[in-house]
């Protein structure tokens, strides 16, 4: 029903509790701690950092410390202040939790979106890498099967002679389209290589 004590992960003079989703930590001072120099300052600094881990942080000090502790310092920082003696424990300043209840859920949702986008990017990257590798292989195959001519000065007529009249004829033809018997016709490539050095038969 009440808060359950949990393991003190801070390894200090304190106890940790959990009540539902809320976690609380109480740093307990003893009478001999009063003699420590800058004790209050250290406590405040310690508990301030713990506020990102625990929803509620408290300082529990002996009632005797009450006169020497400025409660406003705790209140302004959201740190709770408890005074205790042999008979009872009083909450002098209630702890103010940070608005961290929403943060874990929001980050989980954002994480999911980010992870999804990352997965998509990864898939796209892998696909692109595959495509590039395939193109590289095709280019190597093409290069190996059709060595470039030695005489670069005499330009290969195939592309030049096809491209220029292609533009001319497309301009002068109705609709700018080549006739159907040109489409996917392998003879365009074969004939464009006439005279390019391949062995030609004698007519006989």
């Amino acid at each position: 029903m009440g808060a359950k004590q949990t393991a003190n992960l801070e390894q200090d003079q304190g106890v940790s509790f959990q009540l539902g989703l809320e976690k609380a930590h109480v740093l307990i001072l003893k009478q001999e701690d009063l003699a420590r120099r800058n004790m209050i300052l250290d406590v405040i600094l310690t508990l301030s950092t713990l506020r990102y881990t625990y929803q509620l942080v408290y300082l529990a000090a002996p009632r005797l410390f009450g006169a020497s502790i400025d409660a406003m310092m705790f209140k302004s920082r959201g740190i709770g202040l408890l005074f205790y003696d042999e008979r009872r424990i009083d909450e002098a300043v209630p702890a103010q939790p940070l608005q961290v209840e929403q943060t874990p859920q929001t980050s989980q949702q954002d994480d999911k979106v980010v992870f999804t986008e990352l997965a998509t990017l990864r898939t796209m990257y892998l696909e692109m890498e595959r495509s590039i590798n395939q193109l590289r292989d095709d280019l190597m195959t093409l290069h190996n099967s059709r060595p470039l001519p030695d005489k670069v000065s005499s330009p290969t007529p195939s592309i030049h002679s096809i491209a220029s009249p292609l533009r001319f004829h497309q301009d002068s033809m109705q609709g700018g389209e080549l006739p159907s018997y040109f489409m996917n016709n392998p003879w365009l490539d074969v004939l464009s290589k006439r005279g390019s050095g391949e062995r030609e038969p004698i007519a006989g």
Partner: protein
Amino acid sequence: MDFGTSDFKFGPITLGEQPRIVNNRGYFPDKNSVMYRAFQATSEIIVGDEIPLYLQSAEDLSSRLIYPMRNGMIDRNDVQAWRVVQSLAAYGLDAFKPQPNNGFHGYYVVASLSSISPRYMYERLMSAFQQNNHGMVRAVTVIPQPFAVAIGHGVTTCVVIESGHGNSQVCPISKYPIRTAQVALNRGGGDANAITSEILKDAGYGDLANEEALVRRVKESIGLVPQDLDRTLEEAKRSPRKVRAVYKVPGTRIEIDLENDSWSRFLIGEYVFNPNHEIFESYFSRGMPKPRDVKMGETVFRGMLDFGEAIAASVERCPVELQPLLYREVLLSGGNFSWTVPTKLQDLAVDAPTKVKSLLRNRGIKNVSVKMTSSPQFSVWHGCIIYGFAVPENYEWDWQRLEGWMKVPN
């Protein structure tokens, strides 16, 4: 420019799918005739669409109306025929004369001849384009018609069978024409006309059997190709009504009905593909000319070889590794392969590709693909257009390989 047996097809790439077509013929008019003087014609030869305007009596036709390439060849010394060819070439160029001063430097002309054309035909045709072309020709080349068919059809390794009026040619192609493997047959559409004429005589239509144009139309209307002649004749004689052949001559009262002799319509198609069946012997014995082996120039035309045997003989002259590839693409081109199959006779009649495939199968050649060319009427012209478009302009004419551009000085 496709110089076909009957038609001259011509035009630049801008015509798109179809060329312009006129008859491959020329008319030498009588200069004293009224029509010649009325039209103030200056040309000694009339070609193109104007010919009918000058035609006179029927007797006039044989001497003045010249068909230069009736059998795909022109005799070296046939002056009139060569003049007609030259006139047609000029006619074709003039029909597409460009606007002046637009940067035009002359056409690249691709002419196409029969594959059995001897070298002098190449020389004379190229010469025709080099004379008086008025800057219309930049370069000229000549390619064989089967080669043009393969180009127009888009197949680089194939066997093209071109069958026209007077003869047929089997031409293997593998990026180039394999000229040493060509087989020529002395048999074409004219032989189908001959047997049709005999059939008409036997059926009592002797008076019509001598009119060539009518006989040709009868052939095209009733002629069929049988899958298997013996089986088909047996079925046809058993069911004469099923195969009844009737042809009504348009614009006349003349009707040709073969009645119980309708089975003979299957002889017309069979004779084209395989004249060796014994049934044809009776026709030969009665005077029908038997196709015989003839030598024209350097080419021997075989008379009685069936198409299956002709294709096999041609392919087997090619390298062994190439042969299976050639059998996989057999293309049929020419009007002599345009055989219809009536729906109700699909069990008895076949089309040309099926018949050729059957003839090859009978010779043990099984992995065969036989097709008609994609555009039987225009595939030669398509091939000429593609050739002219793609071949580099610096590929010069060579009389050894018979390819390349012959530049025309202007």
